[in-house]
Each structure stands twice: as structure tokens, then as C-alpha cells.
């Protein structure tokens, strides 16, 4: 399958203002359907890279194409899931999920249908009329996922979405995310500090090094989807987690 990459990152560099180089000569091509995890030391530019792909910030050098266009032109194909649920506290769950649809001017009837569908997807159909403060952290994160999926994006950018949750909730949400992915064809860029999470979710893991941020090593994760609890218990899974952890440690201790 040598299709053209859906995201092309070619020798991309980035600096904020006249600050130091944050990203340097980054190369990464994502094929449609890839689930790419980005891990690396704090400050190596993972969030920055997602912001570049999202078109929230311009690249300094090199080029970056999303779906054959500039990130700005491809905005409609992109959705961002932040570390915080970032829900509008004055809106019900249902209205929160409708926000992107409203901003895009989707008609009311279609808006409702889509909202119900994605809320069902994250199993929160029965909480549609609740307000965010009535939900648990994990539930709020699921609303955030539902909202991101409401516009049927081709590319999902996730910046440590489960970082603030306890391990049990995080594992549940990991499985849910993969289950949703079975029925939808998005490509994901997933930033995380958890190696286990990266191995469980992705088919590719990019380990980045800092000062300036570079792609250090890429690891292919060979396990077939769908992945389940059984995957987490397998020997291969544990070996790979250990290998990637070792790699990450070596990157973190190497002086720049």
C-alpha cells in the first residue's frame, strides 16, 4: 500500500519568535490509518509538532502537508483533543458536542443526529443533558473525544489526552478509543508520556530527542488490531514496552 501520505512532514523546523530551535529537520510521513505515538523528554516539541500539524502555529522551515494541502486549508479534516477536556462549562454535554458543528454552520437537524451518534459512541447518550461539572474526569474526556469526532475528521491530534486520569480509567479509554477506531478511518498523532499506552495504541512510535527536538528512533508495533486486555498480558507486549522504555531513558539522559 504505497498510497500518498496523508500527513507529510519534510525537514520541518520551528522556532518561536527569535528563540532557540524547538524542532529541527523533522521528517515523518503518516499513511492513512496510522496511529502514531510521539514520546520524548519534556520540552522536546511534541505539543509544538501537533500545533504545527493543526495549523495553530506556522512552520519556520521545511514543509508540512496535510491531505495534500497546507494545514490551514485542511483545517476541516483535523480535530484536536487537548490534555484538559476543555468543555464549555455553561453548556450541557449535548450542546458541547454540537459546538464544532455549530461553528461550521451545520444544519440543526443534522447537528442533533450527529451529536446523538457520537455521544452513543462514547457511551454517554444518557448524560446528554448534564453539565460538565456533573461528570467525572474520565467522562469529561469522553465528551471531548465525542466532540472531536463530531466533524468526522481524517486526522486526530491528541496531546496527552489521558495524562490526568488514573490508570484504570486510562486503560478503559485506550480500549474505547481503539474500538471507535475500528469503525472509523482516522489517522492519529498521539502524544503521551506513558510508554505502555503508546505501545498498546499505536502501530508506530516515534521517540523524539530534545534540544532541538528531533525524531530519534521510530519503532513499528507489530501487534494486530483489534487489541484487547489480552494484548496487555502478552509477553511480546511487555518486551516491547521494556525496549521502548529503555530507548526513552537513553534519549532523556543523553546530553544535548
Amino acid at each position: 500500500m504505497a498510497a500518498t501520505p496523508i500527513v507529510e512532514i519534510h525537514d520541518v523546523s520551528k522556532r518561536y519568535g527569535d528563540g532557540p530551535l524547538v524542532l529541527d529537520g523533522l521528517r515523518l510521513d503518516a499513511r492513512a490509518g496510522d496511529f502514531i505515538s510521539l514520546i520524548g523528554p519534556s520540552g522536546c516539541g511534541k505539543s509544538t509538532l501537533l500545533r504545527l500539524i493543526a495549523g495553530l502555529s506556522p512552520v519556520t522551515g521545511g514543509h508540512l502537508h496535510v491531505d495534500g494541502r497546507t494545514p490551514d486549508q485542511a483545517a476541516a479534516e483535523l480535530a484536536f483533543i487537548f490534555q484538559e477536556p476543555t468543555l464549555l462549562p455553561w453548556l450541557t454535554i449535548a450542546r458541547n458536542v454540537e459546538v464544532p458543528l455549530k461553528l461550521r454552520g451545520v444544519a440543526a437537524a443534522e447537528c442533533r443526529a450527529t451529536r446523538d451518534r457520537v455521544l452513543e459512541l462514547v457511551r454517554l447518550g444518557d448524560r446528554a443533558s448534564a453539565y460538565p461539572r456533573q461528570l467525572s474526569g474520565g467522562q469529561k474526556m469522553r465528551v471531548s473525544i465525542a466532540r472531536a469526532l463530531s466533524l468526522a475528521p481524517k486526522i486526530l491530534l491528541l496531546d496527552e489526552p489521558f495524562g490526568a486520569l488514573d490508570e484504570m480509567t486510562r486503560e478503559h479509554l485506550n480500549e474505547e478509543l481503539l474500538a471507535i477506531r475500528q469503525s472509523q478511518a482516522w489517522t492519529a498523532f498521539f502524544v503521551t508520556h506513558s510508554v505502555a499506552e503508546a505501545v498498546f495504541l499505536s502501530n508506530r512510535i516515534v521517540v523524539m530527542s530534545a534540544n532541538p527536538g528531533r525524531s530519534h528512533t521510530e519503532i513499528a508495533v507489530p501487534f494486530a488490531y483489534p487489541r484487547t486486555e489480552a494484548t496487555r498480558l502478552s509477553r511480546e507486549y511487555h518486551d516491547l514496552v521494556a525496549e521502548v522504555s529503555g530507548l526513552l531513558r537513553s534519549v532523556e539522559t543523553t546530553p544535548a
Partner: protein
Amino acid sequence: MSKRTLNILLPAITGALFVAIWYAVRFSMSEEMRFLLPTPGEIIASFQANGTELGRAALNTAEGALLGFLFATLVSSAFALALSVSSLVRISFYPYLMMLQMIPVIIFAPILVLWVGPGLKSVVVITFLICFFPLVVNTTQGLVSTDRNLVELFRMYRASRPQEIFLLRAPAALPYFFTGLRIAATLAPIGALVGDYTAGSSAGDGGGLGFQAIIYSSQAKYPALFATAAVTCVLGFVFVALVLSLSWLSLHHWHDSYERTDN
């Protein structure tokens, strides 16, 4: 004892104590000085004697206060929207807003009377001037304090500037807006009273509470003066109660200040 009972009982006890002290002070005064501190009974009696007069004056003052308050709310909201657009705009206007607040309204009242005419118009303008500052400052603060992440979210979905303002910044600013509104609600009746005191007139509407106070003090009707103060108090309570209910209606679903603490 339930919290509800305490909520009623405790203020009632304080109130009774207060009235007791009031009587004690009064009867410790010498006979000829007692007129300076009428008893609550005398004040209530003067309510009956001057009821129609006071009622009409209260309505006039309430009208001035309400109009000034509403005007100030509308204009300050529009102004705050303009100020929130850029920090440059804020920097250019802030010193003058401060000045507006520092200017003692009383000094300009006589000129104001010449400009807009005595009576209701002057009262409305003075109330407006007194309410404007807390409203504009709080609302502007609210409009520029929007959660960075939410702004980023709206950018991500390429929201237009009006969408960002009306779907995000304005609702997020509501708690700040209501803080300003609460302050303005306590100021409005006082503002209208001061306005009426300095620029009120018996012409046309027959004046408000401030004007009535001038008349009563010139006639040495002290119980009636106390009654006027009491009516102003009630007016203030009504204003604050209105704003508090509005605030509750629009915030209690979602804002932390109305978080139910189940115990």
C-alpha cells in the same frame, strides 16, 4: 437546629437587640433632645402620615435608579466589548475611565442640571455615571479572561471573530458581569438619591426621595427623615434581590459559585 431556622432566628435576635439598644439610648437622652432619635413606633407612624408622598417619591427614585442602571448596563457592555478587542484600546481608555470614577459627581450636578434639565433626566445621568465604572471594569475583565484552552479550541475550528465573542467570550464573562452588576445594584439607588438631592425638582414628577429628604429636614420632620432612609434601604434591597435572582438564573447550572454542597 436546622440551618434554615438558624438563618431566620439569628438575624431576628440581632434585630431585637438592636431595637432594644435603640430604645435604651433614646430614654437615656434628656427630654428636650429626644426628638433627635425618634422611636421605631414614631417612624412607623410617620409612614402612615406621609405614606402617599413617600410612595410617590420612592417610585420616582426607583424609576431614575432603574433607568440609570439599565443605561449603564447597556452602554458599559458595549464599551467593554470594544475594550476587550485589544490591549492597545484598553491602555488608551483606562486612565479616562478611572478619571470618570474619581470625579465627584456632586460637583458637576449643578452643571448637569443646566445641561439636561432638573428632575428625572439629571437623576438618570448621575446614576449612570455612578454605576458605569464597576460595570465596565468587571465586564471587560471577564471578556479578556477567557480560558486559553477554550480560545485555542475555537481557533482550531476556525471560529469567526463574532463567533468567538458571542459563543465563547461573552458567556464566559457572565460571572464577572454579574459581579459588576451586584456592585452597581447597590450603588444605583444611592446614586439616584444623591442625584435627586442635588438635582431633584418638585416640577412635574414631584421629586424623589432625595428631594423629599430636603423638604423633611427643612421642616424638622425627623421621623419622616428616618422613614425616607428606610424606604431607600428597601429600594436597595429590591435592586440587589433582582440582580441576585438574575445571576442565579443564568449561573446556577454551571458556575462553581452555585455548587451545591451536599451535606
